[in-house]
């Protein structure tokens, strides 16, 4: 296997507060290869977005990377200075936000937003940038792109705006895209189109994708591998087929059980009892043990084992049997 595009090792993000230090991301490691889509799932507050923000260098102070390293194409990027990091953003790492209604500057024409991005990273003329802007809009499926390039964001529908956002994220041909809940704010009917678009464009270009979502359905349709996060830690990591059909972490199983798609045909949805703990009130031992049906003394006493990047297994003392036990 060739070198991964993105390689995260032991990444820990800390936020100092008056109640002590919070760790929204705690010792997380994973890789994403070229052309691969890694789905990152978990409940809100599990640290999925925070990890994405750490990679692109947009953590809001006082949140900061306390430990670990991030490598892009083999080079460390977690210690880059402001300006060097800025050159990577957009050029090497693109990002798609959740809400297309708020991610576009309402006072600038979309064409201007596209050309300014290209001119910031590529050595091309303004005319060339304008041509490429139209081409980029055509590629994401905006009808009449040559005319719409002068339009303002409010003149587009939500789905169309998310297409524009994707065009913006991809216009400087980055090698990694971080898509943070790209479909959550959209109508259900549009979600599939946007996901398909993102998937097609990244396959064509060999772009690595970190797809952050809480929607198991999206993961099942899109991702190659999946990373499940719980309370800042990686709970399970593996190829999407394995994780979905034979989850090994009790939390993943619970998560599957509470998704309508995975439990098709069953009489009712499973629910995981309780709620994910707040970061300032984590239980001792494995963070999941209060809600876990399999928890024993060891789980209450010892933190769960930390997953290494290539482990195809769960961060659990008593993982479920791969042959579909329990």
């Amino acid at each position, binding site marked *: 296997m060739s070198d991964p595009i993105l390689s995260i090792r032991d990444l820990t993000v800390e936020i100092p507060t008056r109640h002590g230090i919070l760790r929204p991301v705690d010792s997380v490691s994973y890789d994403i290869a070229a052309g691969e889509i890694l789905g990152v799932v978990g409940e809100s507050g599990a640290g999925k977005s925070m990890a994405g923000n750490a990679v*692109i260098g*947009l953590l809001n102070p006082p949140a900061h990377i306390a430990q670990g390293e991030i490598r892009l194409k083999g080079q460390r990027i977690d210690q880059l200075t*402001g300006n060097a990091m*800025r*050159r*990577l*953003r*957009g*050029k090497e790492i*693109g*990002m798609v*936000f959740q*809400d297309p209604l*708020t*991610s*576009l*500057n*309402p*006072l*600038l024409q979309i064409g201007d937003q596209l050309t*300014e*991005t290209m001119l*910031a*990273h590529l050595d091309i003329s303004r005319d060339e940038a304008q041509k490429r802007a139209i081409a980029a809009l055509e590629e994401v499926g905006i009808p009449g792109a040559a005319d719409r390039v002068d339009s*303002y964001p*409010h*003149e587009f529908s939500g789905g169309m705006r998310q297409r524009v*956002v994707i065009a*913006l*994220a991809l216009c*400087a041909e980055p090698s990694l895209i971080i898509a943070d809940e790209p479909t959550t704010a959209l109508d259900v009917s549009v979600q599939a189109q946007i996901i398909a678009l993102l998937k097609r464009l990244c396959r064509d270009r060999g772009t690595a994708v970190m797809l952050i979502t809480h929607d198991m359905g999206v993961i099942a349709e899109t991702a190659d591998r999946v990373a499940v996060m719980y309370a800042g830690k990686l709970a399970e990591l593996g190829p999407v087929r394995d994780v979905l059909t034979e989850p090994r972490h009790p939390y993943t199983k619970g998560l599957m059980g509470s998704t309508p798609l995975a439990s098709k045909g069953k009489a009712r949805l499973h629910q995981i009892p309780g709620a994910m703990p707040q970061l300032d009130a984590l239980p001792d031992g494995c963070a999941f043990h209060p809600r876990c049906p399999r928890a024993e003394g060891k789980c209450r006493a010892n933190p769960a084992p930390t997953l290494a990047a290539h482990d195809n297994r769960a961060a659990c003392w008593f993982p479920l049997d791969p042959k579909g036990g329990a």
Partner: protein
Amino acid sequence: MLAFVIQRVAQSALVLLIVGLVAFSMFRFVGDPIDNMLGQERTQADIERLRTTLGLDQPFPVQYYKFLANAAQGNFGVSYRQGRPVSDILMERAPATLELAAVSGFLAISIGIGLGVFTAIRRDGFAANAIMSISLIGVSLPTFLIGILLIYLFSVELGWLPSFGRGDTVQLGGWSTGFLTKSGLLALILPSITLGLYQMTLIMRLVRSEMLEVLRQDYIRFARARGLRERTVNFRHALKNTLVPVITVTGLQLGSIIAFAIITETVFQWPGVGLLFINAIQFVDIPVMAAYLMLISVMFVGINLIVDLLYFTIDPRLRVDRTKAH
């Protein structure tokens, strides 16, 4: 667009009618105009004659209409105190106030916006914090104290600048200007700083808080995530969005400058309409008060109208929404 303009103009006209009614009521009911205009030695015939000349024997709506018609032609009657037509007195005084207000407004807007942007971008810097602390003192410091302080420092102690009056003026047609003589310009310095300082702090604090709000928006994060230069993000993306709400308030502040000129003119014995108004209140010179009220209302309403229209041209969203709505 046209509908919007018509609606705004109609609203402005309504406000002016109401203010006119207030001014007229003052004119008609506060004190007895007959008493005020005729001396001790008067006959019943004098009173009757004056009553007819002034139209006081006519029904209220007719009187109101005549008052408005006269006001529209710049005829506000005769000052009780000076015995001259109010319009003549106002015309003499207006250039002094307008020149002072123009210089102060320019200072307030340019420095206010500049410092506001600076303190927002460097929000944690030492200079920004120092400016913010000083500005709070500036807001608490009544305008007249600032004036006295400046007079004490630059006129009494240092003897550099004049402490009162306009200096020499040059007549240009009907307009007396202080811009063309050295003493006129020197005399402008202290009053314009006094008058502009409060508005400047307000504009600065407003720009800062709006800018901080805008910098939190998704589209700013997205602009950063696209790797745009910090300068581009701050000035092209953030400042433009900041200015939309700032323009409204700034416009209103410009109106206040003319009203606050009353205070500055009193401190510096500046021969403008504000000083005239204060004297009118002290001596209950109702025609002058009414005329001042009408004059300043026309200015305020005019400024409001211009601000609304400006808003309209800056924010592309309004262009669509408004015309659709009406």
